[in-house]
Each structure stands twice: as structure tokens, then as C-alpha cells.
């Protein structure tokens, strides 16, 4: 093939990224080639920064640049609620709702033996000391799939001896969706998981 080795190498790197196929990888590499040198430097620096500056919060395990993270060190947040989620992106999604004013705990995934993930691979033991410190309620907000469900079951059993209230988010309609357009299975689950008002 008549091409430059550096372009090939870059495309090779892009192709390693999730969701990017050979064709797209090539297109991206050629696009970079056309960019201003300055823009490319900014991009490269941004890539390195993510690696150098971002770390895990020593309290909640969310990604952060300052430790403890902004949420954990915010005194206005309600310290008596901990919402347990799988990934940092879940924190982002929940924060967007502006509903929850407590703290988070990021597990870094969900139980999945098929992927080699057991309790030891998740940040579970980091959660326990937090719970014993005057927390009122732990809200389990895992993804609505079998891995999330197993993680919920596992954690609720684990937290039982702590005498803390443990709840899970309703497995029902996605926010902003219309009852009318929800599929049957979702609706029937939503009905099943209904709560008194």
C-alpha cells in the first residue's frame, strides 16, 4: 500500500479504541494529518494529562484531579446518604438530575464471573468503613441487567449486619419516557416495583 508509516501507526492506535473500526481509524489518522500542528499538540497534551492528572478519589473511588474529590470534600452534601454506582459515568448521569445531594461510591464495575470480576475486583472493601460512619441510607443504583442485579443482591447481603437502611433504585421506566411508549416488559416490572406514595 502507498502510504506513510506514521499514518499507519496512528491508525493502528485508533483502531485499538472501542467502537472504532479499521476504516474510521484511517479516516481519523488522515484528519489529524490535516490539522494545524498547534491543535495536534493540544490534543496530544490532553491525552497525556488524563493519564497524569486524573486519579481515583481515596474516599469514593470516583475519578478526580484533587483528592478527595469535589463531591467528597463538599460540606454542603448530605453525609448520611451514599449512592453506590458502577462507573464514574453513572455519577455524571445522576448529578445531572440534581436530585441527589448525598455522596457516592464508585465500584468500578459489576460482578461478572465471565469477565473475571468477583467481589475482590470491585471497590467493595473500601465501602464498608464508610458505611459504619454514621450513614443513614445506602442507595444501590446498579445498571438494570443481570450483573447489576447480582451486585445489588451481593451488597445488600453484605451491608445487612451494619444495620443501615439499604434501598435500590426502582427497576422501571426510564426517566422522561412516556408510559404509553414503554415496552410491555418494562411496564410490568415498573408495576411490580411500585412503591407507596
Amino acid at each position, binding site marked *: 500500500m502507498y502510504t506513510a508509516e506514521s499514518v499507519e501507526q496512528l491508525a493502528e492506535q485508533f483502531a485499538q479504541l472501542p467502537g472504532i*473500526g479499521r476504516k474510521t481509524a484511517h479516516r481519523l489518522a488522515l484528519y489529524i494529518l490535516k490539522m494545524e500542528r498547534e491543535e495536534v499538540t493540544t490534543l496530544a497534551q490532553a491525552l497525556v494529562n488524563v493519564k497524569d492528572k486524573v486519579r481515583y478519589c481515596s474516599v469514593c473511588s470516583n475519578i478526580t484531579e484533587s483528592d478527595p474529590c469535589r463531591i467528597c470534600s463538599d460540606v454542603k452534601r448530605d453525609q448520611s446518604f451514599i449512592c453506590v454506582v458502577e462507573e464514574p459515568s453513572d455519577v455524571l448521569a445522576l448529578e445531572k438530575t440534581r436530585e441527589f445531594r448525598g455522596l457516592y461510591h464508585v465500584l468500578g464495575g459489576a*460482578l*461478572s*464471573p*465471565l469477565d473475571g470480576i*468477583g*467481589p475482590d475486583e470491585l471497590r467493595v472493601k473500601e465501602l464498608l468503613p464508610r458505611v459504619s460512619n454514621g450513614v443513614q441510607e445506602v442507595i444501590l443504583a446498579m445498571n438494570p*441487567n*443481570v*450483573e447489576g*442485579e*447480582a*451486585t*445489588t*443482591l*451481593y451488597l445488600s*447481603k453484605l451491608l445487612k449486619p451494619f444495620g443501615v437502611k439499604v434501598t435500590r433504585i426502582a427497576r422501571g421506566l426510564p426517566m422522561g419516557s412516556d408510559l404509553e411508549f414503554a*415496552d*410491555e*416488559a418494562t411496564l*410490568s416490572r415498573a408495576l411490580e416495583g411500585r412503591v407507596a406514595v
Partner: protein
Amino acid sequence: MRVTGLRLENFRNHALTRLSGSDSVNVFLGDNGEGKTNILEAVSYLCLTKSFYAGNDRVAAQIGKEYFVLEGELRSDRGLDFTVRVTFDAASAQKKFLVNNAEVETLASVVGRFPVVILSPEGGLVTTGSPSDRRKFIDIAISQASKRYLDELLEYRRVLKQRNKILLDAKIARHDPGDAIEPWSESLVDHGTELIVKRREFVKDFAVQVADAFQKLTGEQETPSLRYLPSVDIDDGADSAAIASEFAVQLTENFSEERRTGSTLVGPHRDEIEFTINGLDLRKFASQGQHKTFLVALKVAEFHYLKEQCNETPVLLLDDVFSELDEHRSHRLLNMVGQLGQTFITSTSEQVFAGALESNSGAKRFFVKQGVVTNEEAGNFVH
């Protein structure tokens, strides 16, 4: 539901086939290997998003072609028209399913929207094959009627895989899986109980329909029946809670054996559905003819079940079935399907249909030769 139009592009040996179906019986005639079954397979793709016998989409694209496109004009019982399209691209191995030009979010969401009942030689396994063939049969039937069931089934299978992985890892490493298995056992019981309840209910209702269809087909006084034999040993009238606690107990009882084998030994994945005629196990005591008649009765019953559950008349696909039935039962079957709904039939022999379709003015006859389809109105039906 009816298929009013059909278009196959680069599908199997059909480079480009267009046809408009009759609302009643459509007969595809031709020698072996001309492409008749491929047309039924296309209808299967449009209704179920997949082939009724081939496991992978790649083999369905015409040899030397990089894609196939199937399009169907479907009309619901209430008169709503849908354009359904299935496209497959070999390079990306991507299959897309579009209803009125909008891509559906998950393929599973399509199942049951356009109900279909398929009777084919491969389907014969349901009466002669292993328990898994019978589980597959009832799973497909119930899934078309209940999306909730399909969800539970898929989730159960996923949980089972996860749980088996723990057991297998523990067996290989010779260690105790400890409490890591607990949430998976609990999930297995949750989802499994739903499956058991639904299957038990289905088999009970379905047995009545099968007996009825069987009687109409044979005109004889044989009593066929179905019996649900769940792997979790439960009392007849047990409710969900009782089934769940029984399931949990039996998991515990089998745990040491599970650790030895490295797999889950109790649960709906090991259910059996026994078919009987006059109280005798079909698999052990029935003749070839009884097997075939039972199979047809199962399918007719499935048709009625889906029609009622989905509120939509299923399309019937009969692949090569008449070569296997005697003349008497063939005629009874033809008369029966003529009254049920839209039917697509393949056959190598016109003989079977001689006389039988004359009373059916809407019937259409197609000839299939090397992937090319020609049609002749049933009015000129010669024999």
C-alpha cells in the same frame, strides 16, 4: 397479519425476486434445490429477524455477494400497513431491522409483533428429539406471546452462564466458591421461578388446543396430551413463593454435586415436556405417522395460541410437509389451513393440491426455478 408483498435481493439463490402474495394459500412448486424454502426463510427473517433453521446470517447472503436485503409489505388484522426491511452487510456482519424505515432498537423487540408459525422437516425434532428441542419449541411460542417471558429467558440464561463460570472456576482451582456464588443462586431462582410459572400455565392451556387440533386432523378418537416435568420438583398447585423456596432448597441439596461437575444441575434449563398419546410417551411408543400428526397438531395449536395472545393472526409457513403425510391427512390439513389464515406452502408435487385448492378462489400458485419465481393465478389451476 398478512404478507402482501415480498422482495428478496441477493438472498440465497434469489438474485432479485418480487412477489405479491394471496391472502389465503400460496403454493410454491418446483424441484428440489430450486429455491422454494428460501422464500419461506425470507418470511421468517421478516417476522422473527432470523432464519428458522440456519444459525448464521452470512450463509444467507448470495454466494459472491456482500449483502442481502429483504423487504415485506405486511398488513395487520386491523388493516395497518407496515414496510419491514431486513438488511445484512457481510463486511461488518451487521444486521438491521427496520419497520417503516425506522430501525428497531433491539431485535428481541420485534419478536411477537409479526407472529408466524413454521412447520418444517427440521421442526420434527420437537417430537423425536431431546428435551432441549421441546424446551425450544415452548420457549419460542411463549416468547412470541410475551416479551416479558423472552426477557426473563434471556436473563436466566445469562445468570446461568455466570453461575456455571463460578462453579467451573472453583472446580478447576479446587477451591470453595464461597459467598461469591450466592447472588447468582438467588438470581437464578428469581428468574427461573418466573419461567416455571409461565411454562406450567402454557402447557396446561396448550394441551387442550393440541388435543382439539389432533382430533380435527385425524377424525379419530386418540387423546394426545402434554405434561410439564419441571427439573425443580414442585407440588401441582405450588405458587410462585413455594416454587422459589423449593428451587432454592434443591440448589442447596445439589451443591456438592454441582461443585463436582462444575455446572448448575437444577433449573428450567433442565425441564422436560412430555408428549403423550393415550397416556403413552410419544417418544417411546408412537408410530411415524403419529409423530407427524402430533407435530402438525402442535403447530395448529401454536397458531391458535399466538392468534389469541398476540391479537394478530399468524402467518403459516409449511415447508415440504405434504410429502410426509398420507393423502387423507394432507387433504384435512389443506382444508384446515385454508380456513386459518395466510399460508405459504412449498412442495415438489402438484399432485397433493389437485382438487383441494379449486374451492379456494384466492389461492395462488408460484413456480420456482433456479431462484426465479413465476406466478399463475389459481383460476387457471391445471392438474
